[in-house]
């Protein structure tokens, strides 16, 4: 049986010091999902995940999150990732303030 085709992903985590949701860009972390690097190749994604996980001095809980690509901008697939990208819905205390 052919395995499921690989769908686009971003690498995400929480920042060690602030706890903020962050995404991997080339070799740095951003708080803005639209600036995250989109990974479309499975082998590459796995490798990048290992590298990102090694940055435990900067981030906590690194994982791959599914996105769809709108133009060249990643958009969360699951509502949980949507909330993570924006912050809580009851107060403008999260990222809504910034983005």
């Amino acid at each position: 049986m052919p395995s499921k085709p690989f769908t686009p992903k971003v690498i995400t985590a929480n920042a060690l010091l602030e706890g903020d949701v962050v995404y991997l860009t080339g070799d740095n972390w951003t708080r803005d999902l639209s600036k995250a690097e989109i990974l479309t190749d499975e082998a590459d994604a796995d490798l990048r995940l290992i590298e990102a996980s090694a940055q435990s001095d900067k981030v906590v809980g690194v994982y791959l999150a599914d996105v769809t690509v709108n133009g060249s901008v990643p958009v969360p697939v699951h509502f949980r990732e949507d909330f993570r990208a924006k912050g809580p819905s009851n107060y403008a205390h999260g990222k809504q303030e910034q983005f």
Partner: protein
Amino acid sequence: MYHYTDFDAAFLKERNAQFRAQVERRIDGSLTEDEFKPLRLMNGLYLQLHAYMLRVAIPYGTLNSRQMNQLALIAERWDKGYGHFTTRQNIQFNWPQLRDVPDMLDALAEVDMHAIQTSGNTIRNVTADHFAGAAADEVTDPRPIAELIRQWSTDHPEFQFLPRKFKVAVTGAEADRAVIKAHDIGLRAVKREDRIGFEVIVGGGLGRTPMIGKVLFDFVSQEDLLPTLEAIVSVYNLLGRRDNKHKARIKITVHENGIEDIRARVDERYALIRPQFTGVDQTLLARIKANFAAPQFLKGDSAPYHSAYKHDPLFRSWADTNLTPHRNPDYAIVTISLKAHGKTPGDATARQMRLMAGLAQRYGHDELRISHEQNVILPHVHKGDLPSIYYALKAEGLGTANIGLISDIIACPGMDYCALATARSIPIAREIATRFDELNLEHDIGPLKIKISGCINACGHHHVGHIGILGLDRAGVENYQITLGGDGTEQAAIGERAGPGFSATEIIPAVERLVMAYLDLRTVPEETFLQTYRRIGMAPFKAALYPEEQANAA
């Protein structure tokens, strides 16, 4: 009010210094996250969806004004100006930064507070009836025993790695306001002849497999209580399942082995350890009790109360819903609603905390309580002071007259904050409250408890809500399941699932149909939602919830 001894203070100081060093070592890279995580959790520090979260215990829900003011200061200095009170009488700060947490813990220690054992597989914050020491129906104030249990369980060497977390709740009255039958151990003070003892209930719990606790012993004398608890937890520690997280709570241990088997094992263990309890705990208890002596009640003039009650309909409405009889007839227990329509249940701003602290200091013998229903209580208020309190509260958005009504909703943080959530709870609570406020039906509907959890862990106690709402993730979409007929009181019952769930937009109209059906079905306005449900059962409510199915079946 219990005040820390030198021993308590020194212990906490040392713990905080240790944690400060651990945080530093995490930041400088000497500790990995795998090493650090259990250490931070031992100190109440979680990592949630958007930030760290610090969970601070409010033992048996009791605070003085100094402590409440300190919580306000912490909220302002290190958080975003507010705190969230939970169903376990804790306060959660949603936005601390890692570097600041040791300072926050030191600030807590200044007022005899901590975040120890608010996480992990330990004995958690001991909760109690929020009307303790004030309620008219009380056998004894449950807080001294709760404090004794807190001291016994804090840093207890044998119980730091239990199969799973362990929650104890205590009530001193026949009426159960502490949901004791949904705790790992529930204790209820009872009087036999002239002796005070405790009914010991074990194996209750909500979550994935909700269970009502079973009576293990119907009377354990005060002197025998601590060794009994030690025997129970020790039996569970060995017998509880460590192979499957979902089967590790004592409710499953009791369910799988049977209450008789557990009783026999506890008896055996008890016989072995009883001699180790030489009565030191009773000396300690006597000392603790002195800390909880009733305040010097004032003899004042109640005329301002009667006059406001007569002339101000808003005050009257608030007094009718938010006051509870006090054991001193000149006094009242005030419940301050943290459920203003459309606001987040259980949240208070620093400003509101300061106001409540100030009122407690000025009018309330310096006492405040946090209820598991996420409200704040002034347990001892002279009736003459009620109007002043009400007008002050009202000015800060704290005058909502809705205690026990449809908008007095318990809601866990859900997917707005919680990393474990499968759906949001807060917006559902806000929308239900707003909707029924618009309909202006709240007071007509009468007592009705809605409880919402954002996942199966059931922190929002949905199983014991008259209407329970559980948020789930169904194929990547938020979906809300309704249970009916739950009850968290002495007549505890687990709600029954009504049927398929509803989407986030369908759930509010569904609740509305349910409540409208109740208004039609009740025999008299005094028949509550729960009574009506108990009388006629699920079917008519199901018909209201799923009208299409009725149409299809017809």
